[in-house]
């Protein structure tokens, strides 16, 4: 039987994908217009990691899940009102800046310090989860950097599946080029897994789990340690929206045959 797992999920928050984003310059570098009032969600790939962590923890007795998140306390609280109803976890907030324009190395350092300081964390049986990329910076490097800082040298990115084995080893499917998965077997924890979408649907809201999480979440938010992120020499020369707006031809009166002919010609044209 596999040993109890300690799963730490790193998850940022991102603007709701349906929101219009407009970059602005501020005293601390670029940001988003009205960033603090834009509705936010848990970063989509990190959310997949959280759901997979909850499933995995439920399958191995004695396992535990932490959710570590860096952002302004008010935004974290707003997002956790929903996320807290989807899976059971201990919430570890870090009070820091919002947005994707910060430096990944500084973010990783703050997250790694918070994880290293988690009381009761068994680092020998640690699985460090997160999204393989975020919907903000989208660099796909933060989790790797945290892993390096914690001394974990078995790392997997673009993970869609983990299968535990009785001897403590596990099989991992990672996305690689050409729509394939690379199949690896790791001898056991600790390991870093940056998740792609996985295979689980978004869990339905469970008010009971929500109540259970909320009891600990509010005190955790009040005690959240502040983090100041250094730019690490990162300099923004320009930040802009793509300017390309196409002149769309809208065809409402063509028959299916006419459209098909036009499409076949277009597909065949170099």
């Amino acid at each position, binding site marked *: 039987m596999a040993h109890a797992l300690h799963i730490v999920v790193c998850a940022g928050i991102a603007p709701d994908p349906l929101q219009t984003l407009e970059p602005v310059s501020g005293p601390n570098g670029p940001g988003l217009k009205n960033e603090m009032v834009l509705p936010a969600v848990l970063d989509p790939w990190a959310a997949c990691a959280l759901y997979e962590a909850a499933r995995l923890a439920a399958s191995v007795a004695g396992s535990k899940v932490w959710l570590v998140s860096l952002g302004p306390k008010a935004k974290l609280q707003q997002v956790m009102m929903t996320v807290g109803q989807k899976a059971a976890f201990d919430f570890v907030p870090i009070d820091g800046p919002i947005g994707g324009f910060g430096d990944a190395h500084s973010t990783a350092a703050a997250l790694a310090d918070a994880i290293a300081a988690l009381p009761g964390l068994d680092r020998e049986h640690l699985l460090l989860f997160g999204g393989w990329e975020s919907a903000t910076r989208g660099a796909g490097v933060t989790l790797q950097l945290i892993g390096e800082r914690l001394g974990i040298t078995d790392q997997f990115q673009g993970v869609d599946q983990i299968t535990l084995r009785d001897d403590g080893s596990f099989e991992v499917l990672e996305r690689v080029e050409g729509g394939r998965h690379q199949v690896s077997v790791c001898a056991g924890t600790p390991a870093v897994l940056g998740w792609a979408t996985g295979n689980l649907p978004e869990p339905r809201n469970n008010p009971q789990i929500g109540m259970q999480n909320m009891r600990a979440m509010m005190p955790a938010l009040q005690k959240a340690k502040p983090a100041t992120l250094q730019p690490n020499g990162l300099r923004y020369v320009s930040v802009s929206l793509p300017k390309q707006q196409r002149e*769309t031809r809208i065809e409402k009166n*063509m028959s299916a045959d006419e459209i098909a002919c036009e499409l076949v010609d277009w597909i065949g044209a170099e």
Partner: protein
Amino acid sequence: METILVLTHVDDGGAALTRASLETVTAGLELSRQSGSSFAIGILGLDAEAAAGAVAATGARLFAVSGEAFAQARYATDAAGCEALCRAAQATLILAPASARFARIAAGVAHRLGGVIDTHIADVQMASNAGGQAIEATRWFYRQRIEAVIGRELRPWFLLLDAGTHAAYAGEPVAAQVESIAVAVPAVRTVVEGFRAPMRGTQTIRPDARLLFVAGAGWTKKQPDGQVHVSEAGEQILSFLRLSGASLGSSKSLTDQKADGQAGEDQPVLPFLTHLNQIGQTGSTPRHPKGLSTCCHGEEPHAVGWRFISERRAISLDANCGWTRGKADVVYVADAFQVMARVNALLEARKP
């Protein structure tokens, strides 16, 4: 003065550089000429020396890390190998392809060298500014919705270049003088057992295809006769892929229907579709010359996956869908079932 190192790796065969690696060689060569920097290429793989001839004509200093330990793409060994290559070249600027193999390890290597990293680079140039000349890189934020040009003061600076942003280097193979770098192989706890294609029957993701065909959730909705026709939709889509050679993408809503079905809901699904086909906010952003969208609405979370599609057309029953708002070149307001049936018939008839 920079010392530029292009990190490359061999393909599954073990002795030839990947296309993405050759594209990065082009980027490195151009940048070294612009900046007057010294230029080196590092190769990682089972038989890295054998692959060196393909890039020897660049005139770059060549380094190789070879051996059985580097036959498999795995964090512990690949990170150790690339760290050794960077140290041997004493590089200040490291360019590498954003392949699955290097995307897995590059940040870790940058950390070990006390450097910094930026990824998904679409362009890298020598630029003039108030302080003189500096290297600047272009990348996207917020899932291809905001574009930024960045610079870094710290070195070494790692830049992972997206595939398709440069032409592949195609110099004549010549005899190469390669410096083989010895690496202390770390303890290996991960074994790569191989590859698995999740699609049943047919390969639907074709990165080199000229056309991206994207299916939306409309294919599984009720049609004018009040019934759903999922199996017919699946046949039409697969026929089109077979006849056109297109790569298949899908909207999130369509792939999520499969996930719901697996959770126990009796939802019709397209059996060959997986999350790997997903395009957009939580999917991929592939590069193809042309893209054809069918039965999806073209709203922002989906359309970000089309950022790097040059020519875009869409078939939608909704004349006010997102595609009509300056995102597609042509929108046909029509029933995709009818249109694609006729397209398939025409392609079949024109088949040589």
